């Protein structure tokens, strides 16, 4: 129900935007900012890169929203744009150079501080530190995956999307999605031995 209500609200805002109501676009952005931003962050592995990708995603949405024909959910369409934007950026030369120089256990201190802003109920410094340490390792392992596998892991295991939705977002067949996911998890298992 919640999902359906969310989808109906999206359709209403889009129709309002197509009727030259610019405020509708702002509401759409505010509704989906965190979702898009986190997706970009998990795919890019860097806060500033994630910000750029998220901005680029919404700029593309702004320029193409007039042509949206409601054949699929707006969130699926938005995810697709975000994934492709991040993929293009990852495959660019500068991004590949940056990735090669980044070690698996090397955390970005700014990102670490941003993560610590999230509220945690247990006030145990050692536990908090160990937890963040583990999260960093897991993020590092996910970041080290090839872009296609990383996208599938993020969409399925983190975002909780169905195989059909992932197939629509990535353009793969559902069977291909499953087999690639199994391979990605096997890679993660090899990297996270002893950690989990």
């Amino acid at each position, binding site marked *: 129900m919640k999902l359906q209500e969310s989808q109906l609200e999206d359709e209403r805002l889009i129709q309002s935007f197509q009727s030259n109501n610019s405020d509708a676009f*702002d509401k759409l952005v505010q509704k989906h900012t965190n979702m898009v*931003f986190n997706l970009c962050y998990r795919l890019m592995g860097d806060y500033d890169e994630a910000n750029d990708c998220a901005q680029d995603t919404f700029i593309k949405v702004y320029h193409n929203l007039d042509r949206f024909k409601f054949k699929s959910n707006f969130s699926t369409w938005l995810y697709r744009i975000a994934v492709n934007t991040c993929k293009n950026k990852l495959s660019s030369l500068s991004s590949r150079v940056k990735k090669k120089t980044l070690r698996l256990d090397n955390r970005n201190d700014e990102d670490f501080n*941003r993560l610590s802003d999230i509220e945690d109920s247990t006030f145990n410094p050692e536990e908090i530190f160990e937890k963040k340490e583990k999260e960093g390792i897991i*993020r590092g392992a996910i970041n080290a995956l090839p872009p296609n596998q990383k996208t599938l892991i993020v969409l399925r*295991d*983190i975002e909780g999307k169905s195989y059909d939705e992932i197939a629509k977002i990535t353009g793969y067949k559902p069977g291909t999605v*499953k087999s690639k996911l199994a391979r990605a998890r096997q890679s993660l298992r090899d990297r996270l031995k002893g950690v989990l």
Partner: protein
Amino acid sequence: MKCHEIKYLLADFIDGDLEPDTQSMIQDHLSACEECREEYAFLQAYKKEIISLPAVAAPANFLTDLHKRLDEPSLAEKIRHTLFFPLKLKLPLEAVGVAVLAAITILIFNPFEMGRQMTFQPESASYDSDIAYYAPEKEKSMKRTEARKESKLSTASKTRLADSRKRGAATGAVIERKTIDKSSGGYAKKDRGKAMPAYGESAPDEIEDRTLSDETIAQDDSLYSSKAIEGERDKESSKRMASKKAAPAAAKNNYAGKGAIAEFEEIKAEPAAPEVYEIVLMLTPETDKFALANKSKSKASYSQKLPHEYYAKNEMKKSDSVDMKQKYIAQKRSGRKLSKESKPMPVSIKKSLAQIKSIAGSLNGRIIKRKFRSGSSTEQYIVLEIPAKNYHILVNRLNSTGSVKKLYRKKPVLRSKQKVNLKINLSY
């Protein structure tokens, strides 16, 4: 089910996305297989950790920054604005800039002048030599035209021309009435058609007239003396227009019109003193064997006068060749000059060509090109390069060998490097 199939479905088993039959089958397998149980344990921990990965908050000014980027003009818009706005100021400036660039390009490359220069190139081989040698009257009209044009030269140019004539007369070379023969195969082309009157072809007397004797030089000099020019001017003042039309018209009748017009236009320009000639020697054997008298080492043998005594009206008989050879060798050994009665001895073609090369070398010249007859090792053309002042001496020395039956000469137009065609018939 096998282990790899179970492992493939474990993640969905954890999520509860499988059918009940498949779920129970996997459950039974897990109770029996330790490896699959380990895999199951890992996936459970992995799912738990990955879901608990904290979310990241977007920047607070995300929407503001987004609007800034949306309101920013695109790159094309920026370029358009930079180039054309404000219109009143930028358009005139840009128009001026384009005009200046065009002017600079024209100044540097001079496309119009290049085109004009190319039209000066005559399409066919030398033409004025045909004028000179096909018909005496045409040569006269050429002379009149040249005289008329020379009258228009500045005083300094006339002085320079007179000096060059004096120098030429001293060395035996007439240098101002030469034309460029562009094609080395010019002779071949001309020979195909109606034969042009060869240089000295018809009779020895004509050879005398055409060769560079002192009389000829004196005649030419008189033609270009100041008195002669003035006289010409007076006499031909009424006929200038007719000659002007006749000479290029005659040229046009015989050749491509462009070459003739170009030649006259070139005469307008102040002629530069030539420095080097390219002599193209075309060897046309009448027999398989060539005869070329040995070059005399004595300087006295290279007189300025044409050794016309070597040309006899009666041609040498073949039966005399052996005797003549013996006589010639005897004369050479004695160091005596070749007398009137002595006739060339037959020698091998290689020796003949070696003599030509040695003559050129002795005149500070050099061979720059050779062309061989097809299918043989016998040379057909030799292109020599010699200083202009030694041209007359070269011709004399070639004549003095005694075996040059015919000597063709083309008159080059004044340029820094003129090409002169000499066709040599080496006779037995």
